[in-house]
């Protein structure tokens, strides 16, 4: 939970439940201008619609329970005709107002070009992020500099996914055969969680990622680090782990730049040790989780494309240590 809590809008106070809607992936926990705009829109709509709903329900209750005078048929009929006509007119005006509100929000959100371009490719069930200018790729973790607009080009390698970081912006689908785009801008440093929002098969539930917004210096540093090949093995155990990795099926699907592992079916693992989570947001990156994941991916994430590769416990530990060392 990194994003700042608290909602500045007094309007929200009228809706006691909404401020409770915070969380690491909440659309009301705003981290950027677009999400702020959208939260304002959500709140305005909720307030207006809520009032209308209360009025309708109150009228219904009144109509059911009011004390009834005797007689007066024709007059009631005329009054009712007026009342209904006015209500319909009011409905039309409110609807028109809300439509205008929506259009205004669309205009002020207005996409635009980004200062930085990143390509996000949805895969069953992980996220591939490519930084074309720097020429490297990473997985499930997107870094962006605070205060700058980042244009994310959205593609899909298989089925339809949807790119969604609620605290920063609305969602946009990734459709095979088409290219869509989304702009992200973070106002303050932080870690924002995103998740696939379009049902994409077995592990749709475990297709999360993190967006890390950081100041320009850290961002540059991160870029430089990521563009490097993997650091050479420093200890005996790491070297042993690397040997296991390269000799076993691991290397057939994963790339670790700087080694002979050049598989492309799975995520690039060159700097996996530096990422906050593994298996698309499933587990925090530690030596233990790396070992657990490698040992039995199909129990942790049934149906994932990573097979259960039989390893001895020693091999398993060596591989985990090696992967953890890939900072």
């Amino acid at each position, binding site marked *: 939970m990194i994003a700042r809590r608290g909602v500045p809008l007094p309007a929200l106070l009228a809706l006691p439940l909404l401020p409770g809607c915070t969380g690491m992936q909440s659309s009301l926990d705003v981290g950027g201008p677009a999400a702020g705009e959208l939260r304002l829109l959500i709140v305005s709509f909720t307030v207006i619609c809520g009032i209308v709903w209360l009025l309708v329900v109150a009228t219904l209750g009144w109509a059911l329970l009011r004390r009834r005078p005797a007689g007066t048929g024709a007059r009631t009929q005329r009054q009712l005709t007026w009342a209904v006509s006015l209500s319909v007119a009011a409905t039309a005006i409110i609807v028109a107002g809300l439509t205008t509100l929506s259009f205004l929000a669309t205009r002020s959100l207005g996409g635009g070009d980004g200062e930085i371009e990143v390509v996000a490719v949805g895969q069953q069930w992980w996220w591939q992020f490519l930084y074309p200018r720097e020429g490297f790729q990473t997985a499930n973790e997107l870094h962006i500099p605070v205060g700058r607009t980042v244009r994310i080009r959205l593609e899909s390698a298989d089925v339809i996914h949807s790119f969604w970081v609620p605290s920063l912006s609305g969602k946009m689908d990734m459709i095979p055969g088409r290219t869509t785009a989304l702009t992200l801008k973070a106002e303050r440093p932080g870690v924002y969680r995103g998740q696939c929002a379009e049902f994409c098969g077995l592990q749709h539930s475990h297709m999360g990622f993190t967006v890390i917004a950081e100041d320009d210096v850290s961002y540059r540093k991160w870029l430089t680090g990521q563009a490097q090949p993997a650091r050479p093995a420093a200890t005996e155990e790491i070297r042993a782990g690397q040997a296991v990795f390269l000799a076993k099926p691991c290397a057939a699907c994963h790339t670790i730049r700087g080694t002979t592992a050049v598989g492309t079916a799975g995520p690039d693992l060159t700097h996996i040790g530096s990422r906050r989570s593994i298996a698309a947001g499933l587990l925090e990156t530690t030596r233990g989780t790396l070992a657990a994941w490698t040992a039995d991916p199909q129990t942790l994430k049934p149906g994932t494309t990573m*097979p*259960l590769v039989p390893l001895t416990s020693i091999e398993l530990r060596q591989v985990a240590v090696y992967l953890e060392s890939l900072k």
Partner: protein
Amino acid sequence: MGSSGGRRRSGWSVASGTLSLCGVTLCCLACATALGWMRAPRQFRTDPPLQADLGNLRLLPNRIGGTPPESYFALGKPYEKVAYDLSQGKRLYTWFGCATCHGDGRGNIGPSFLDGWWLYGPEMISVAASIRDGRPHGMPAYRDRMTNDQIWQLAGYVRTIGAYGPSVSATARNDDPQTRPAENRGPASILFEQGPAGMKPEQGPSP
């Protein structure tokens, strides 16, 4: 015959109609349960011991033909007929670059799967052995690059490429540019050309 007779009758038939419909539905579900052996659950995880046993290919000395491991039969030979395993095999065919040599199945550097000629016989075990151990004249061994169940999945898929009839469980077309009918339409029967046209004698023994 007044309306009261009609009433009793209809009242009865509402209840009995409802009951019999519930009965019909329940019977159907009961039948379905009884036909449990027809269920086609998908196995995502192969237990490590099973995984290890799947590697026990009991091949004949010439490494053509033989008996698959016991566990293969115990599982019910899923890799030949379960649609999910076949589709996984198809993905492996792409991921492991089989198309580099075998093309879309019509062969290129490597032999074709569509011409009716299986250089080492058409049995699952021979295909699996070819993938796992490699073959002379260029077929590399995938022993260290794939797990045993993946090898079986791929072998099952490769055999559907060369199947001579449409198969219900074989994979359908991919969302890619098309070069031949998909496996579920029996491409070998559509594209078959008389004689071992794609056959290259230098690639191995004649069948």
